[in-house]
């Protein structure tokens, strides 16, 4: 293997698994250390810069960081990254003065944004301080998009949305709320320099099976129903409720039902329990509220009595896998199952809908899915002035992806408006600093906590079910937050090896608690991986390879389960190992938003 190029920002970025997995590349260990130190406002601002909605995401994020967390590979569970983020938001105090100021002078460019959800608001956050005049359109009367309309208040209180959307509206965008865009052509004709489409995936999929039309009064589309609940148009539901679907929307539907009069609420899914799309913790929360999840049942018919819904029948299926490992649901042949109900909520998926985009304005849609053709890097459509992001770009994902799209699109729009090449993306910033303070003193806490993951305290169940606005999760208090923060392995404090200092004494090999360092002869990667002290079987993790040492061997370090405890560096007699913090700062438009 060639010696590893640690000058490439991606190399050590990948070692910070959480940050690499986060679509917005939030520097997670950095803010977790700040939380441990009690510097909540600093932690909040690190988050805010990357992911724009720390308080919202700290309660609702899909957490791609947590399955990636290295801790999950050396013990049972990852660090509770998401809920620590919330701690920063809960205890930050007043961060108003730290927020960027509105642009001192306009730069003369006007941007229209369709939808006031997380993608559009991120674009505004990045571009408004640069002097762009942003005009945001949304059909709803208040900004926030699906964050406000679809996420139940018992998971995300309204004040949190108001606060974090407020930090952006204070940057001076023109908010045209209650004003739905009906024609992209008309919008373009108004002479904007660019248009950003962040209109989400607003259409809930229906279930056209027998009885659907006749019993329509008591059959509701999940996201529409949640939205009506959110805006107070719906305040109750029948005693017996069936929720169809296995995603997070279904979990929100069933839990909301429990709070609006549903006593016998059940979720029924086609797939197996394990394959459900809902996050495991959302399933747990639903089950904890006495909501059974029944699986392998395919909806067959809505049963009604002259239009009055009284139940549903389902066909029992089982999963079978073909030679290529693809799953098929095949009937078991058992008799259909019948469940009584008063209301059904259909949460079987969401779709994009662009009836307001004319198909003759030079914006190509693909034939198969009827989705706009959008560049995955620049987020530009085939119409040079029109950019997409969030669910509108590539179909339903989640908030953190919408934010990431927003950042990337903002860079593109900025470059487009300044006449620069969109394909040239600004490189990330990289701040490197040695953590060494003494022979065995480091400026980070290198002791490895053995604590298991802490649970977030919940409101007492009866209390929680009484009020749909009562937040269920109470959040970590500072003591719990400190203990959980200490579980973080500080993966951004990197083990940096200088080959010409090494005397090959083996001290690092002997002390490494996870056997990740080996001195051996060089070889091809696949072969080298097999003869390390602990075979490196996780191919998603890199091998850090040094140049040739005095004995002709190389140092090879498997990054996979390194605890970043720094013992290799403490044991190194020559300083060949050092612990260096690599703060990787993914570029954003203009870089004007940083006001740390």
């Amino acid at each position, binding site marked *: 293997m060639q010696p590893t190029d640690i000058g490439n920002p991606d190399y050590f970025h990948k070692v910070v698994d959480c940050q690499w997995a986060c679509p917005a590349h939030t520097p997670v260990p950095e803010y977790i250390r700040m939380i441990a130190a009690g510097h909540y406002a600093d932690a909040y601002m690190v988050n805010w810069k990357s992911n724009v909605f720390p308080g919202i995401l700290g309660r609702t994020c899909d957490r791609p960081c947590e399955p990636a967390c290295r801790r999950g590979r050396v013990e049972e569970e990852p660090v509770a990254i998401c809920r620590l983020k919330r701690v920063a938001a809960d205890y930050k105090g007043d961060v108003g003065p730290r927020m960027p100021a509105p642009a001192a002078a306009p730069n003369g460019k006007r941007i229209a944004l369709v939808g006031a959800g997380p993608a559009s608001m991120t674009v505004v956050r990045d571009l408004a301080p640069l002097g762009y005049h942003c005009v945001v359109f949304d059909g709803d009367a208040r900004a926030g998009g699906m964050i406000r309309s679809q996420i139940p208040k018992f998971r995300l209180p309204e004040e949190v949305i108001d606060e974090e959307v407020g930090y952006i509206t204070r940057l001076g965008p023109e908010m045209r709320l209650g004003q739905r865009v009906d024609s992209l052509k008309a919008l373009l004709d108004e002479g904007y320099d660019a248009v950003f489409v962040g209109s989400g995936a607003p259409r809930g999929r229906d279930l056209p099976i027998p009885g659907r039309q006749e019993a329509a009064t008591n059959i509701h589309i999940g996201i529409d129903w949640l939205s009506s609940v959110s805006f107070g148009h719906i305040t109750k539901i029948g005693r017996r409720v069936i929720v169809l679907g296995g995603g997070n929307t279904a979990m929100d539907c069933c839990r909301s039902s429990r709070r609006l009069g549903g006593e016998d609420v059940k979720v029924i899914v086609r797939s197996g329990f394990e394959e459900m799309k809902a996050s495991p913790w959302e399933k747990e929360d639903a089950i904890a509220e006495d909501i059974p999840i029944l699986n392998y049942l395919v909806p067959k018919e809505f049963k009604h009595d002259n239009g009055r819904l009284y139940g549903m029948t389902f066909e029992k299926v089982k999963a079978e896998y073909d030679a290529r490992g693809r799953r098929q649901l095949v009937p078991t042949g058992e008799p259909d199952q019948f469940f009584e109900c008063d209301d059904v909520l259909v949460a079987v998926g969401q779709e994009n809908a662009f009836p307001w985009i004319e198909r003759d304005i030079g914006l190509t849609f693909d034939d198969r899915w009827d989705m706009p053709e959008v560049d995955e890097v620049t987020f530009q459509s085939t119409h040079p002035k029109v950019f997409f992001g969030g669910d509108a770009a590539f179909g339903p994902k989640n908030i953190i992806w919408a934010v990431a799209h927003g950042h990337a699109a903002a860079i593109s729009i900025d470059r487009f408006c300044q006449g620069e090449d969109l394909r040239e993306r600004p490189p990330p910033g990289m701040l490197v600093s040695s953590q060494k303070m003494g022979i065995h003193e480091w400026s980070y806490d290198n002791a490895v906590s053995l604590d298991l993951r802490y649970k977030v305290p919940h409101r007492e169940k009866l209390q929680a079910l009484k009020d749909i606005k009562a937040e269920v999760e109470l959040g970590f208090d500072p003591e719990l937050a400190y203990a959980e923060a200490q579980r973080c392995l500080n993966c951004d404090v990197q083990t940096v090896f200088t080959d010409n200092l090494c005397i090959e004494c083996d001290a690092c090999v002997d002390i490494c608690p*996870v056997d990740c360092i080996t001195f051996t002869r060089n070889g091809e990667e696949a072969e080298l991986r097999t003869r390390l002290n602990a075979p490196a079987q996780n191919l998603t993790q890199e091998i850090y390879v040094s140049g040739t040492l005095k004995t002709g061997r190389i140092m090879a370090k498997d990054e996979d389960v390194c605890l970043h405890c720094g013992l290799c560096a403490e044991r190194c007699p020559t300083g060949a190992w050092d612990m260096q913090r690599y703060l990787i700062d993914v570029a954003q438009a203009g870089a004007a938003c940083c006001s740390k």
Partner: protein
Amino acid sequence: MTFLPKPKLHHPDLQKNALGYTRRDYEGPVSTLCAGCGHDSISAAIVRACFELDIAPHRVAKLSGIGCSSKTPTYFLGASHGFNSVHGRMPSVATGANIANRELIYLGVSGDGDSASIGLGQFAHAMRRGVNMVYIVENNGVYGLTKGQFSATADKGAKSKRGVVNTDEPIDLVGLALQLGATFVARSFSGDKAQLVPLIEAALKHQGAAFIDCISPCVAFNNHEGSTKSFDFVREHNEAVNALDLMLPREEITADYAPGTVELVTQHDGSVLRLRKLHTDYDVHDRVAALTYMQERHAAGEIVTGLLYVDPEPRDLHAALKTCATPLNALDDAALIPGSAALDKLNASLR
């Protein structure tokens, strides 16, 4: 040196041996020796050897004297018996312990000061009596704890860190062990675990006096230019006579080497030493030739390493003294205190 205990977390694929222990279970508290000390590598090699041999930690007694090397038994086999003796007196304590209970595995760890200066006589007698033990000298040629004076094993002409040249002849512990009748004699290097671990394993399996002289650079006081015990010097002048693999009776023995290059030596307990010869004319069974060869190569400035001598049928102290096979702590009072009648009988037999 670190103040932090080694984290308990380990590699998810960490293997277990036949007893269900991982290698980590054979470790001790974290070392307080200087960062990079060769002794820590030897400790790691001992840990690995005991793990691989499925040795129950509580069946091992580790003994040492005084010095950096003699501190190390604290840092490995945390669940074994330990005895830290007076300076240079480890061999006597080991001999006594062995007489009292022959069922334990005795592992003596000493240094060049502890064994070649104050304890030289003790070392000599443990070897000539054939105490069934592994005797490892962690040999760095300096007194590290007193800041780097030459020890008795420092080579004549070697330079100290302050530039002083050693004028005294070195004591060659390997030569002494050979002369005095040790039945397993080896030399190795802390910086070469591939060689050291199998040697320790073979020594642990040897049922007699097994001596390993392990050169272990002192990173603080003897790892400079002019030293003959530095990492660089040892690596440059290391002449291994053979490479050893220990084959346990349960393993299938395969000989896939060209004829004449591999020698299999079956030890008394059934373990097999597979020696890959690096010097084809070197005979590990010829004590006299070994002595001559050592001296020749030393004169040429080389450091000979590997398994230097082995007697596959060793005779140990117990055989010579015809002692009772049962450990003293397992004998009942009647056997331990036979009474005045037995004493009278014994006295009568001597009249």
